[in-house]
């Protein structure tokens, strides 16, 4: 990313899988772009769409919601609800002019540190292409 | 600064904080600008709007006495966002003060009369300056009866001053709680029942009461039974106030603006309100 534009990403990571996965990426010294600010949540199902909208309102360029793989949820069905909620919100935001690629929902288990690091880098590259939030 | 735009508060610093009860603090506030401090004179019953910048503003009765010239005191109960922010302030922090607003207790009319003061919980706050003003000019007034009630013993407000109130000449202090605890030796009864039991005489007397609406309703009934006329019973109304300047109309109850026509009213005036507060 040559341009000086640094996308800001807010990441809601579920405590049981994704946060542990990000932790593993850290402890195994995997490097990935520093654009993400992580917020730990008990479950990806805890993320209220209002939180995501507040992130975009306060100037975030991208929002990542990461939870356990469907079926592995510590609370059995949290990520099933996440899936439904943000499948709809993503389409709706796109319709309103906030690019759908600004909202990612990913499943990262506790052992997929590498995959988490790679995913953050991909997301940062994608957002760099999309450009700052002002236009879309 | 300030008067030019009446919405811009005077800056003040928090001098001291005293925990009166688990959810009520006594704050002493000093206006920063000496000129403003000199010109800021008020009377018991008036209120000011305190600003916790970032959270907002709320009205509080001024509970200190002007002649002490020792800063402004407010008793603040933690009940909402602004009061919570005020409770977090420490001595030295900056806050905003706007006022003084509203009318005041017409103490000059009570000279020579017996005074009955009935307060419930934080309702004692606006009554404290009246008590202390009477004690500082004790001979101008007749007998002073103070009935101070609260839910539990630690919720009794202004405990540090009970001793002084009890020892003052021709003064009686009746404390009561809804629910006592092991150490509590005093009365366990609702305020209106204590008023009925002590049965102050209405002759040449006035009663000032302030507290939760339910206490007021029953205390009023008891006082009427004892022979007090509406014009002899005074209270200070708490309403949603925002500007304190008679403009935003939030405190408009009936045809009155609490922030300007009140907050101190006699129940005779209140009975003529079109709308009951």
């Amino acid at each position, binding site marked *: 990313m040559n341009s000086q534009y640094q996308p800001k990403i807010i990441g809601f990571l579920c405590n049981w899988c994704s946060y542990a996965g990000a932790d593993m990426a850290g402890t195994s010294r995997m490097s990935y772009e520093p654009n993400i600010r992580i917020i730990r949540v008990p479950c990806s199902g805890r993320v209220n769409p209002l939180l995501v909208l*507040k992130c975009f*309102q306060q100037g975030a360029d991208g929002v990542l919601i990461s939870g356990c793989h469907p079926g592995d949820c510590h609370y059995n069905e949290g990520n099933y609800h996440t*899936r439904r909620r943000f499948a709809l919100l993503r389409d709706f935001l796109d*319709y309103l002019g906030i690019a759908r690629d600004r909202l990612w929902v990913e499943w990262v288990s506790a052992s997929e540190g590498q995959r988490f690091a790679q995913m953050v880098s991909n997301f940062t590259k994608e957002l760099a292409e999309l450009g700052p939030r002002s236009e879309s | 600064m300030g008067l030019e735009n009446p919405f811009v508060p005077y800056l003040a610093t928090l001098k001291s904080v005293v925990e009166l009860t688990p959810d009520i603090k006594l704050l002493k506030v000093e206006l920063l600008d000496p000129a403003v401090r000199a010109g800021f004179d008020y009377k018991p019953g008036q209120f000011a709007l305190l600003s916790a910048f970032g959270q907002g503003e709320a009205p509080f009765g001024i509970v200190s006495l002007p002649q002490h010239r020792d800063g402004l005191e407010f008793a603040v109960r933690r009940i909402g966002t602004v009061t919570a922010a005020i409770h977090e302030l420490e001595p030295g922090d900056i806050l905003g003060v706007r006022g003084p607003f509203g009318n005041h207790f017409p103490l000059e009319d009570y000279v020579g009369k017996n005074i009955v003061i009935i307060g419930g919980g934080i309702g004692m706050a606006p009554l404290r300056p009246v008590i202390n003003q009477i004690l500082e000019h004790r001979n101008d007034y007749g007998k002073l009866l103070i009935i101070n009630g609260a839910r539990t013993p630690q919720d009794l407000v202004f405990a540090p001053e009970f001793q002084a109130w009890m020892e003052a000449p021709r003064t009686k202090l009746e404390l009561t709680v809804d629910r006592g605890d092991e150490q509590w030796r005093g009365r366990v009864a609702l305020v209106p029942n204590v008023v009925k039991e002590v049965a102050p005489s209405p002759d040449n007397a006035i009663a000032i009461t302030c507290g939760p609406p339910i206490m007021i309703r029953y205390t009023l009934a008891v006082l009427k039974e004892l022979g007090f006329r509406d014009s002899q019973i005074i209270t200070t109304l708490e309403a949603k106030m925002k500007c304190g300047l008679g403009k935003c109309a939030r405190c408009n109850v009936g045809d009155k603006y609490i922030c300007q026509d009140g907050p101190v009213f006699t129940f005779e005036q209140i009975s003529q309100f079109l709308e009951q507060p």
Partner: protein
Amino acid sequence: MDSELIQQIRSEASYLLKDGTVKCVIGYERASDGLTSRPFFAYEPAAVERLIFDETCTHNLVRYLLDKKREKVAIVVKPCDSRAINLLLNEAQIKRHMVFIIGVTCSGVMETSCNDKGQALQARCQTCQMTKPLVYDFLVEQKLVERPEGEPYLDIQEIETKPIAARRAFWSEQFGRCIRCYACRQVCPGCYCPDCFVEQLDPLWVGIRIAPKENELWQITRAFHLAGRCIGCNECERVCPVDIPLGRLNRKLEKEVKELFTFQAGLSPEEQPPFATFKKEETLGFEE
């Protein structure tokens, strides 16, 4: 104006009031402009003479059931309004035995405004195929006019096909006009939270600041809270004093909910709404 239809409504209402089955009948009466109509609450049998029904009766009266939870009332219900009854029954906001439903068959209501009976049927009525309410206790039938089947989401597609910057500009301009009078919330049968998020102070999601960012957060969240619940009566768009096409927010979500979860709000009081349930095997675009 079909007087035979009105006579039936009046006699049923009078009967219900006289024998005390209901405390009041919620229906329509002629408005002060003498042309259009407005909601009307009849408490005494004599008042039923003011009840009318014609193609200017646009209001969705079901919202008023939220204010009359503790007494049995009767209510005049169009086919689209009846979906709102199913919504409130599904969300346990009203009890079926507390509501006597006077259903009216309908062939569309006009695009009315003050002093204007309207020249055409409302857009949503032009292609609506519902002629009979889904639930009623007493049905009043009127001769119906055939309406053509049509492509319901043309106005939504018109926005979807714009480039993203144009969509962004379109909605920013619309939301820019919002004065936050909350009429869209107050008129909606689905909006009944005692403490709406927009007025919460702690956390201060939106509050009183009227600016593009706050207006956008308000409008998006309001619509999203109705996803899978909005029954398409379009009252929010009708009441908006600054003409924001709110229907195009709610019906976009209605279209997506149909595609993603094959669900439509208010068709039955038992069916689980989309966000209250899930299917394990669905991926919804979030592949493994």
